[in-house]
C-alpha cells in the first residue's frame, strides 16, 4: 500500500497549477467576474494540455490516465475557481466530437435538473427543453433549471470530480484564511495569535485533510460508496471552509472586493449538483445494512 502521490502525479499537479496560475490568476478572475463569458481560448488551451482528454485511452488520441490523475487536475481547477462546464465537457471527451480538444463546450442536464453554462454550450446532453434561467448566486456560473425534470441516477464520476473541485476550494480557503491571519494585526498582534482565530483555521485544515483522504481513496477504488462518502466530506469542507475563511477576513470578507465570497458561492453551486447530497447519504446508509 502506497497511498501517497507518485512523482508523476506530483509533476502533473504542478504543471496544472503552473498553467492555471499563468492563464487564470487573480486579475483574470476579477475581470471574469465583471464580464462572465466563457473564455474559448482558455478552453482550447485546457484541451491542448489534456484536461478534457485525460482519461481517454491513448489509442483513441487521449492521455490515457485514470481517475486519480483526473481528481488532481480538478482539485487545481477548484482552487482557482476556474469557470465553465468542466465536469460535463471532461465526461463528454471521447464521445462528443471536439470535447476532448477543447473545441466544443458541453453542458449537461444533471440528475437534479440543473444545467450550468447552457447558453455557452455547443452541445447539451440531456433534455433541456423549457429550461429557465436563474439569477445565479455565483457570478461566474450561469445556471438554468429544467422544471419537471425527473430525477435520474447521477454519474458517480461526475460526483467525484465535483468533490475534487470542492477539495480545491477547501484547501484554498484555508490558505487564504491563514495568510490573512498571519498578516492582519489587531490589538497590537497578528489576529492569528488569538486562539479563537487559530481554532477556526485548524478546523478548516482538519476538514480539508479528512476530505482529501476520502476523495483520493475514492479515485483509487472508484467505488460508488467511497465516492458518496467523498462527496459529503468534500461538500462540508468546501462550504464550511469558505464560510470560516470569510469570518477570519472580518468585515472585509463581507465585501465584493474580497474574493472569498466567490469561493463560498461556487461551493454552494457545486454542492447542489445532482440534486444535493441526500442521495449520497441514503446510499451510505443502505451500505451499513449490506
Amino acid at each position, binding site marked *: 500500500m502506497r497511498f501517497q502521490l507518485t512523482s508523476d502525479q506530483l509533476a502533473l499537479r504542478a504543471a496544472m497549477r503552473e498553467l492555471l496560475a499563468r492563464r487564470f490568476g487573480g486579475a483574470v478572475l476579477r475581470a471574469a467576474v465583471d464580464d462572465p463569458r466563457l473564455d474559448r481560448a482558455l478552453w482550447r488551451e485546457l484541451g491542448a494540455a489534456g484536461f478534457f482528454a485525460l482519461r481517454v485511452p491513448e489509442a483513441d488520441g487521449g492521455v490515457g490516465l485514470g481517475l486519480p490523475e483526473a481528481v488532481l487536475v480538478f482539485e487545481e481547477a477548484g482552487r482557482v475557481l476556474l469557470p465553465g462546464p468542466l465536469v460535463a465537457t471532461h465526461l463528454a471527451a471521447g464521445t462528443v466530437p471536439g470535447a476532448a480538444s477543447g473545441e466544443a463546450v458541453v453542458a449537461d442536464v444533471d440528475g437534479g435538473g440543473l444545467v450550468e453554462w447552457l447558453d455557452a454550450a455547443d452541445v447539451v446532453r440531456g433534455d433541456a427543453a423549457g429550461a429557465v434561467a436563474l439569477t445565479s448566486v455565483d457570478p461566474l456560473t450561469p445556471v438554468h433549471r429544467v422544471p419537471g425534470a425527473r430525477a435520474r441516477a447521477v454519474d458517480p464520476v461526475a460526483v467525484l470530480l465535483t468533490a475534487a473541485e470542492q477539495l480545491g476550494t477547501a484547501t484554498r480557503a484555508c490558505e487564504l484564511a491563514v495568510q490573512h491571519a498571519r498578516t492582519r494585526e489587531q490589538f497590537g498582534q497578528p489576529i492569528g495569535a488569538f486562539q479563537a482565530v487559530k481554532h477556526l483555521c485548524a478546523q478548516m485544515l482538519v476538514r480539508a485533510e479528512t476530505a482529501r483522504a476520502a476523495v483520493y481513496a475514492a479515485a483509487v477504488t472508484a467505488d460508488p460508496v467511497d465516492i458518496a462518502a467523498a462527496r459529503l466530506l468534500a461538500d462540508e469542507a468546501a462550504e464550511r471552509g469558505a464560510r470560516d475563511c470569510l469570518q477570519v477576513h472580518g468585515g472585509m470578507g463581507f465585501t465584493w472586493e474580497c474574493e472569498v465570497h466567490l469561493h463560498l458561492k461556487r461551493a454552494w453551486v457545486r454542492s447542489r449538483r445532482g440534486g444535493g447530497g441526500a442521495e449520497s447519504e441514503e*446510499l*451510505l446508509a443502505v451500505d451499513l445494512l449490506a
Partner: protein
Amino acid sequence: MDLAYTPEEEEFRARLREWLAKALPALPPKPSPRDWPGRRAYDLGWQRMLYDAGYAHVHWDASPTTRLIFLEETETAGAPYVGAGFVGLLHAGPTIAAEGTPGQRERWLPPILRGEEVWCQGFSEPDAGSDLAALRTRARRDGDDYVVTGSKIWTSHAEVADWCELLVRTDPAAPKHRGITWLAMPMSAPGVEVRPLRTLAGSTEFAEVFLDEVRVPVANRVGAENDGWRVTMVTLSFERGTAFVGEVVACRRVLRSVAAAARDDGRWDDAVLRRRLGRLNAEFRALWRLTQWNVSEAEASGGGVPGVGGSVFKLRYSHARQELYDVAADVLGAGSLDLEQPWVLDRLSSLSYTIAAGTSQIQRNIVAERVLGLPKGR
C-alpha cells in the same frame, strides 16, 4: 497512489487471521470491568499468547503498514485490546527503545513483550491540566538516587502497575520546559500511594498517585537529566500517532450494529435518522482512509516517529466517536438511560476522548501553530 497491499503483507494478514481463529476460542472468559487483578491477568495472558505466536513486538519493529494490518485484523476478529499493557507497549516501550541505554532496554523491554510487567503513565498533575510542562513533582539528587515528592493524577492502570513512566522537575530554576527528567519508577517503592478515582462511567480506570520521598535510582533515568521534555515529546507522538487505528475499525463495526438495530425496531423509516447514519458512515470511512494516508506517509518517511498528522486525526476522530454514540442513544430511545444496555457505557467513556491525550482545544493550537504556522499567542 494505491491501496493494494504487497503479497508479503497479504500473507502476514492471512497467517494472522488463521492464528486468531484458533487462538481466540482458547481465551478464558472476560473478567468484570471492576475486577482489576482479573483484568490485569487477562490482558497479560493475551499479550503472552501474542508473544508465543511471534506477534508481541509488532508495535515496535514492524513496518507501519504491517502494524495497521495487525490492528485491523485483531479488532475485526474481536481480539482483546492491549488493555493494561497499553502504556508499556505503546508509550514507555517505544520511548525506552528509542532513548534508553542498552542495559535499560534489556531490563524493561522483554517483560513488556512477554506480558509480565504493567506500566502506567505519571505525566499529568492536579494543577497542570493540559499544560504538561507545568508539573511540580520534584526530584532532588541524593547519592545514586533521586528523591521524589509530589503527586500525579489521571494515572491509568496505577492500581495494578509495576512501573511508572514518571516526569519530575529536577531543576526548579530552569524555564518550565527545561529542568524536567523522565524516570522509570517502581510502583512498589516505599512512599508511593495509589488512590483510585471513580470516573463518570462508574469505574476506576485511573487513579491519583501520591509520592512522598520516593527513592528512584539514577540508573532509572531515560535520557539526560533535565532533557525529559524532549523525551516526553517522543512518547506523546507515539500516543497520538497509532493509538486509534483499531478503534476506527471498532467504530465502523458499532455503526453497523446501530444501523441493524434501527432496521429491526422500525426506526429505519425515519429519513433524518437514516441520513445521520449515512453521514457517520462517510465520516468513519474517511477516517479509515486518513489512517491509511498517515501510515503510508510514515512508511514513505522511513517509518520513524509519527508526525503532527496524528493531531489532525485525533481532532476529527474524538468528535466523530461521540457523535456515533449520540446516534446510538437516539436509536435506543429510552433504553439509552439504562446502563445495562449496549453502547451506554461506551457513550459515557467516549466523553473522555476530546480531553485525554491533549484536549481538542490544545490539539487545535498544535495544528494551527505547527502545521499552519500561525504565531504563538494567548
